[in-house]
């Protein structure tokens, strides 16, 4: 079970670590704060509670930068 992660220069396949894996958990695994990120699942804006399924594409957009 895999999904595609797109974030900045990253465009990679990752394994879904467990069932009901959510975007919120993914953000924690990547050490990212949800305060700085907007998430898209298969091209649509979603809430972080959304689950990631096989072959999904997750795009994380950083909206807050220093400066």
């Amino acid at each position, binding site marked *: 079970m895999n999904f595609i992660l797109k974030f900045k220069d990253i465009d990679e396949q990752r394994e879904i670590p467990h069932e009901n894996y959510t975007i919120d958990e993914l953000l924690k695994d990547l050490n990212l*704060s949800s*305060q*700085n990120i*907007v998430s898209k699942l298969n091209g*649509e*804006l*979603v*809430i972080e*509670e959304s*689950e990631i399924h096989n072959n999904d594409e997750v795009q994380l*957009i*950083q*909206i*807050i*930068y*220093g*400066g």
Partner: protein
Amino acid sequence: MMCECGKCGSGYVITKNKQSGIYLCRDCFIDSIEKKVIKNIKKENLLEKGDNVLVALSGGKDSVTLLEILNSFRERNIIDICAVSVDEGIANYRQSGINIAINHAKRLGIEHKVVCLKDEYGVSLDEIMGNNNHRGSCTYCGVFRRDIINKTAREMGATKIATGHNLDDETQSIIMNYLEGNIDNLTKLGAKTQSPADKFTVKIKPLREITEHDIGLYVIAKQLEVHFDSCPYAQQSFRMEVSQLINNLENKHPTIKYSILRGYDKVKNAIGDSLNKKFHSHTNCIKCGEPTANKLCRKCTFLKELGVD
């Protein structure tokens, strides 16, 4: 798990309000942000009929959102809008924001000026930073940008200057000034600020009650073109530390940013008047004529130091 929009019942939600726990769909979210800004404008009396508002437009998410929402007042013939973008001369960074600003101004048919530091003062930020002896990029940026925006407001006949400061910016400034004991600067914050010097145009912050995250979500939900990037000179700063501190608090106390703001507004009313008289006497800079508390204004002091005056 099924979530429904708390306003219209749509099953396709894009955000959950941290304070209320209510989910919103795209359209209801966009609507809620616009209504909130309009409500704040009315509550704080930020706009009057016939105002000509100069928008400080960097092409980033905050200023583009500001322009978008203020434009609804322009469409209803309540105000007129003009815009200014400051090009500090930061290679591989600023130009893309400036191009986006130009596109938005064209799209809306708004008079727009781009002012370069290099043309205005004979030196770009990159050149300043090429010297070993400097005060840190953001110090120059802040002082020069303010000078250009103030002057442009007079040139374009603006009655107000609107900036894209959001709830995060404002609460950071409040806490920073408290922590540094800088009570003079503390009283200069707020939704609407008027310097005692008549030469300075009134400044307003219509987005002051919207979180930075919601502004980011708004521009993406509305598919507005913006420049998301970090400045090459941005470094770990006291502001960033304070930002992390407030965001950590917010995780457990979701209304903390609002309570910081509300508390501040009460304090400002209480102490503002007494401090205003004491601190804010001014004269005009002997070099450029801009209002200042000293003989030379900060801009002219910096230009002298840099050897370009």
